[in-house]
């Protein structure tokens, strides 16, 4: 039982680190909060909304995303996010680091 909680906490930390990369990678096409949540979950990454939305804000304030309020197809106004030029540059680097790390981990764990 106690281990379960430990595992949960470690997973939480593990996900937190990778989530930024996942979000950046999905925002080459612009999305609003809920559609991004769906897109991530369709690819198998379940994210809590209360984690995703503040993260979008943080990435934007770091200059990695751009956003604006818009009305599309007569729906309600939504805030649309898309990756910025700086975000693209950062994502490229992160992707490379991620492949190296994944490779290392694979060797270490098998």
């Amino acid at each position: 039982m106690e281990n379960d909680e430990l595992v949960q906490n470690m997973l939480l930390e593990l996900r937190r680190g990778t989530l930024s990369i996942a979000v950046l990678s999905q925002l080459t096409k612009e999305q609003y909060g809920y559609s991004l949540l769906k897109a991530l979950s369709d690819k198998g990454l379940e994210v809590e909304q209360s984690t995703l939305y503040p993260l979008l804000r943080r990435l934007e304030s770091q200059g990695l995303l751009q956003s604006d309020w818009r009305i599309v197809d007569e729906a309600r106004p939504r805030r649309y996010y898309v990756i910025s030029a700086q975000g693209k540059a950062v994502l490229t680097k992160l992707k490379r680091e991620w492949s190296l790390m994944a490779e290392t981990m694979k060797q270490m764990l098998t």
Partner: protein
Amino acid sequence: MSLIDRYIAEVGRHLPEKNREDIEAEIRSMLEDMIDENSHQTGKPVNDELIAAALEQLGDPKLLAHKYAPARRYLIGPDWYEAYIETLKRVLATALPVVAILTIFIALAQDPIDFVDALGQAFGRVVDVAIGILFWVTAGFVIVEHSDAKPNELERAKTGAWTVAQLPEMPKKRQISVAEALTNIVFITGFTVWVVLPFVQSQGNESVPFLNPDLWQIWLPVFFVLVVLTLIHEVFKLIVGNWTQALMITNVILCLISITYIVALVTTQEIINPAFLATLSDDVVAELRDSARWARWTVNISAVITIGIYVWDMVNSMIMAKRLNRQEPKNAITAEKML
């Protein structure tokens, strides 16, 4: 939609003012997306149950707010910052001029010629009082801030820990701001402790008390009772936040009693100790008569100003109470319409 409004108000309460509105709008639009989607999937119409489920999925509003604006180690955080600044401004703006004018008056009463010295004394007192106010108001808010438990991000691991049942009611629009009521409390207490009490105590052996010692028999005790009653009333104003009938009526009664007290005091009593007046000038009779007349005028003018403030307060509370009365049924209608 009132559940959503309450949820968003609760999130906003814990956000820094800077981008509060924008974040609120964003959360609202995301919530509506989620609720629409759920309603679409389940085939159920949008109802409170569906809304509650969406809110619970989003979780504790306080926690959500702190994810948007991670809790730093604040002395006074966003929850209390605005009330703090507002209170400080109001207290300083009311107390400092009064302290300055009083100090100049007293200094001039003791030495009518040395105006520069009076200004100097006033400046010194103002700095003293300002530092005192700064310290005590800050200390009060720091205590309030830190008695409030801060959420910890890892708590989130326990899902379902928060339910809509914990959502507070929509914060009512206050007629009496927290800062206003606090300012009155701080001001009345400060005025009594730092301005009135020094007058009342006889100042050592050599100096003669400023106020007539005869007042101790009835008038001063009654004054302190009035101060305490007024303070209690202010505390109720702080808690209730609106000019309800009960608060308005007690306010009118308190004001009328205070006005009666002042009129009776000024017309029937010798407020300033004649012995004190006698110390002001040397044995010159004409000058003594002058300072006595001067003192009486000072008392009368202060009394008129104070009565004016009471009358204004009374009328204001009656108008506000009437406005509140008219507002309430209207609010109920709009709430129904929104549902």
